[in-house]
């Protein structure tokens, strides 16, 4: 999707940017210098989220802070829509770039509305326009302006503070947002929700976003593009999440994304990406002979019992269908796992592996059965679009599963449990 119709996004280009800290004199007790950056060149297209990910001290935050010149590069330039950021007035530059940090940094002495209107106030908007904008942004991030506008930051939950931080960064509709671990300080459940909300917001806003995280899962989820940094401030790989997971460019990247990168790729695809396959369905009272015929004609041997509104009730196993008579609801003993178009394949697979019958039913908003999903369907989709060499982890036999012949559900199940047993792996 291009950023075409959106007025507000800019191209950010790092052109041989280097930051060295070897000449910095350090007083004892002072914070260690941030990570150096070594000859960084990459281009973030307008309207895309580019995630900078890597272990700590690898220069990702330094790279981010060089865009709004909180840190000045030792050499090289950063171009914003072709203009060297180093030649712009630093105050004006910063006011034109949204900035969100992990600890949020809301002003404790100002109300939520005043916090949100920070940059509008700095650039001299009228009081009414500031208030209007604050209300608009609070509504956008899902906080009722009447209820939250007059509160102080201390009266918000962690998740609410993070959202206000995002709203504040959006206040003057900047073409670029810099986000430094913006969801790092909240618990995993809130983080997941904030990530989803932000992705929905970005669909409308289409800003150019540089997003720093040390969490590869967050990088894969949030990024249109991902730059994997390694120690010494070098980019080990720059590409789409799918590319990075399918074809890690080096052993470092393979190790960093984790041995479970195949499973991580599953998180990038959704049930809606699979071809629709209507299940063989029957209703209570249907003729058994007819139902048998339908089951035999279908690639999946189970019959789906549905109600009058086509809502799934349960599976009828092939051996539970009598020779003649009618279908009864007691024949269905196993309830199928239910997913929808937005469910990730990772979640769908996990649900199916847990179920007695390893197939799921995708439903629409009304609860009507739409499509049948099997473990084999998921595996087939994963095999498409996988090219090039793969880097194995030392002593890792799982890579063999990538060779010819699709792995069966059993093999994937085995890989899942092997993964679970390996959670102690130092990934970052």
């Amino acid at each position, binding site marked *: 999707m291009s950023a075409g119709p959106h007025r507000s996004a800019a191209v950010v280009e790092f052109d041989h940017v280097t930051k060295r800290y070897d000449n910095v004199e350090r007083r004892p007790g002072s914070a260690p210098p941030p990570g150096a950056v070594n000859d960084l060149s990459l281009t973030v297209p307008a309207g895309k989220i580019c995630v900078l990910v890597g272990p700590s001290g690898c220069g990702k935050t330094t790279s981010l*802070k060089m865009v*709004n010149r*909180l840190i000045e590069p030792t050499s090289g330039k950063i171009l914003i829509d072709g203009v060297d950021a180093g030649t712009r007035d630093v*105050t*004006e*530059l*910063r*006011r034109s770039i949204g*900035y969100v*940090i*992990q*600890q*949020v*940094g*809301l*002003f*404790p*002495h*100002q109300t939520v509305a005043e916090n949100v209107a*920070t*940059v509008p106030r*700095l650039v001299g908007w009228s009081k009414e326009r500031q208030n209007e904008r604050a209300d608009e942004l609070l509504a956008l991030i899902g906080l009722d302006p009447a209820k939250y506008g007059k*509160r*102080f930051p*201390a*009266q918000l939950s962690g998740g609410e503070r993070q959202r206000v*931080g995002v709203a*504040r*960064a959006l206040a003057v509709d900047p073409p670029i947002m*810099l986000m430094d671990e913006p969801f790092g300080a909240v618990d995993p459940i809130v983080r997941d929700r904030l990530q989803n909300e932000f992705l929905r917001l970005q669909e409308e806003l289409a800003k150019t976003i540089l997003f720093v995280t040390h969490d590869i899962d967050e990088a894969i989820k949030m990024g249109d593009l991902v730059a994997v940094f390694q120690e010494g401030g070098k980019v080990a790989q720059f590409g789409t999440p799918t590319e990075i997971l399918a074809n890690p460019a080096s052993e470092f990247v393979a190790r960093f994304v984790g041995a479970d990168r195949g499973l991580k790729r599953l998180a990038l695809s959704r049930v809606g990406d699979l071809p629709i396959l209507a299940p063989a369905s029957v209703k209570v009272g249907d003729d058994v002979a007819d139902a048998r015929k339908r089951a035999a004609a279908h690639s999946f041997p189970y019959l789906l019992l549905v109600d009058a509104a086509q809502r799934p009730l349960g599976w009828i196993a092939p051996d539970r269908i009598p020779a003649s008579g009618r279908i009864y609801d007691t024949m269905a003993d196993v309830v199928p796992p239910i997913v929808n178009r937005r469910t990730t394949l990772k979640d769908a697979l996990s649900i199916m592996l847990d179920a007695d019958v390893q197939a799921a039913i995708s439903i629409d908003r009304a609860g009507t059965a739409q499509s049948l999903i099997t473990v084999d369907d998921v595996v087939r989709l994963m095999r498409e679009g996988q090219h090039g060499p793969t880097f194995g982890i030392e002593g890792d036999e799982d890579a063999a599963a990538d060779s010819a012949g699709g792995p069966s559900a059993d093999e994937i199940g085995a890989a899942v449990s092997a993964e679970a047993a390996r959670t102690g792996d130092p990934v970052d």
Partner: protein
Amino acid sequence: MEGQQLIDWSWIGDHLDDILVRTLQHLELTIIPIVLGFIISLILAVWVTRQPRVYAPLTATTGLLYTIPSIAAFAFLRPIFGLSLITAIIPLTTYTLLILVRNNVAGLQSVPADVLEAAEGMGYTRAQRLRRVELPLAVPLMITGIRLAVVTTIGLATVASILGDSFGGLGQFITEGLQTFFPTKMILGGAMSVILAFVSDFLLIRVEHRLTPWAAARAARA
């Protein structure tokens, strides 16, 4: 004078005008040093935040100034400024610095690093950041310092009476009471100083609450 009472209430009733004048003088002897001391210590505190290494010598200096007895300071300044208000104000001002510098620095240092970084990243100039972020957030600790300095100065200011009658403040009652063996005046001077200190402290607490509604929100959460 047989049967002299400890407190001669009728004398007090006859001299309410005097008491008011002396109280106002005492306020003058307190407020001028506090205002001057606050301005000086604020400048010094901002300097400390920019140049942390000056803090140690600075606190040593303000501590040293505090140890100079007021009588000695008056004796030293009298040849220059005479028996004037200025001679009284200078040592009273320098005494406030010990408390005010320390609290103003603590106030500025209490501003969280993430708040400073966010402000800088959003395009506050240094002056804007100081005025709109650092100073407002330093207010609670600054006022704590001012309260302490006010109470201290009200006590110290009684000594100024030895310099002159025209600005002597409540200390004048104490000195005169001592000279004329009239306990009512001594007790009056002392009691009025204590009352003044209590009232000032109470009013400053009110000012702090008025200036920092956000601090109450924070306290309620903690």
